[in-house]
């Protein structure tokens, strides 16, 4: 019965996409987290996080390792549900709908909130099949021209089309690391999400590949809301409009990126961005 209701009231409708982008602070946030606590088997990992994430911009989550930034990211599309003993309390909304609501189907939710992982993880299939995977499982297109179009469009947006268009049937694992990560981004955008979560997407890549991904992120923000976790402050400074600093499981400070990096209000943030803690 619960699932039935979910179906009738689909989260898939993407209302905000065609509205003009705006920086106006009065516009409701795409994602709003309030009072979020996460514990793993009783051990508190993040504590009382309140954060608004704006639509069609890049928000970077920074902080020393183990500070809870990845944990928070994985709360947004409920990937933490997969971890046994993980408990999330508090409230997260996507377009004012409770992500943890009882009528929310994670399958539908994750279609709207795509994710790119730390280690590039293309499936051991062809390049084409990797991109086509999402549309196929969600039944957006199962074969023929529709699917071809989605695959091409996604690869073009991910900036990979020119490199792979002649070998779509080649195994994805044969690509270089950077290409594989861009393929994973293409795979994520093929299902037409609103939000893309990126968990240290460049940590396994060389500087040149990293630069390409950063360019890509910059392009993508015109269409998608992007939340990126990074351990590199330089990267956060380069790609994000707003930056949130996590420390010891708490959200210390969130503000426009240039303010965080030049004139943070919290002492801990200052210490971190100047390199004295880390």
């Amino acid at each position, binding site marked *: 019965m619960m699932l039935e209701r979910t179906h009738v009231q689909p989260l898939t409708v993407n209302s905000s996409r065609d509205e003009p982008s705006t920086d106006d602070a009065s516009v409701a946030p795409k994602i709003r987290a309030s009072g979020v606590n996460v514990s793993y088997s009783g051990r508190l990992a993040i504590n009382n996080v309140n954060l608004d994430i704006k639509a069609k911009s890049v928000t970077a989550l920074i902080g020393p390792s183990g500070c809870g930034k990845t944990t928070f990211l994985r709360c947004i599309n409920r990937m933490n549900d997969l971890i046994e003993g993980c408990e999330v309390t508090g409230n997260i909304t996507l377009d004012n709908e409770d992500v943890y609501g009882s009528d929310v189907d994670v399958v539908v939710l*994750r279609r709207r909130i*795509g994710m790119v*992982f730390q280690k590039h993880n293309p*499936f051991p299939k062809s390049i084409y099949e990797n991109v086509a995977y999402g549309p196929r499982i969600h039944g957006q297109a199962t074969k023929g021209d529709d699917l071809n179009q989605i695959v091409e469009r996604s690869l073009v947006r991910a900036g990979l089309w020119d490199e792979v268009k002649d070998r779509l049937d080649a195994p994805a694992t044969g690509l270089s690391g950077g290409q594989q990560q861009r393929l994973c981004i293409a795979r994520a955008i093929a*299902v037409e999400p609103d939000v893309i979560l990126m968990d240290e997407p460049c940590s396994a890549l060389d500087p040149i590949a990293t630069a390409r991904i950063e360019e890509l992120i910059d392009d993508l923000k015109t269409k998608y809301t992007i939340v990126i976790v990074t351990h590199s402050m330089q990267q956060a400074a380069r790609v994000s409009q707003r930056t949130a600093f996590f420390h010891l499981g708490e959200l210390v400070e969130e503000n426009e990126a240039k303010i965080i990096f030049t004139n943070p209000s919290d002492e801990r943030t200052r210490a971190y961005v100047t390199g004295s803690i880390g």
Partner: protein
Amino acid sequence: MVERLIRAILFSCSAVAIFITIGIIASLIFEALRFFQSVSVFEFLFGTEWSPQTALRADQVGASGRFGAVPLFVGTALISTVALCVSAPLGIFSAIYLSEYASDTLRSYVKPLLEILAGIPTVVYGFFAAIVIAPALSNLGASIGLEVAYESALAAGLVMGVMIIPLISSISDDIITAVPDSLREGSRGLGATKSETIRRVVLPAALPGIAGGILLAISRAVGETMIVVMAAGLSANLTFNPLEAVTTVTVQIVVLLTGDQEFDSSKTLAAFALGLALFCITMVLNVIGSQIVKKYREQYD
């Protein structure tokens, strides 16, 4: 000095393994060659009539006995196929459940229980097949108007399949566990459900390795002796119908060698020719199978 002596002893021990292999190959080839002096290789490999009994009389050695091994090969294949039809789905699905769904507690109970299935001596399976399963199948067949032979390939294959379940499930379990979690997360992150992830990402990634495991299982089925000796037929019958009685390579080896007869009658020598064929087939299956399994067990390390 002592040091060198001990090294020499150790080295010669390790050479024993080589000698065993050489011993097997040499004895099989030597006796088989003697067999092929009286029966042509061609007749042995492609002949469809197997009736070694007539060669019992000393004055007729090799003259009237027929040594076409095709019915034995077909019988072996038939029983192995039945065994695989039982063990492959049960083994693979058990492995999927154990590696993807089961709690640690359930795993810790079920895995040793499956190991018990693997540890039961084959003669016990044979008894079970002959005394319990075969009559039951025969009666069941009769009740629905099907004629099921008392020594049907189905009964032997079914029980052999149960014996092989643990082999397939433990190899599949290893291979599925070796598929990295990052692939599962990638799929779940795209909104795939758990079973979609397993069916469309995990299994395709594990499939070649599982196939290697199945080759090893086939090798085990082909070389299995006691179940078929006790539950399968003794006389050659060229058929693909699992409800009929068929005989296998290993059954014939036992039948040919467990009577009282001279060591070098064609009958005895034929057993060695069959042994050679068995050795070659299982060897090829094992080498290919274990290479594949090894590769896919380690591919993401």
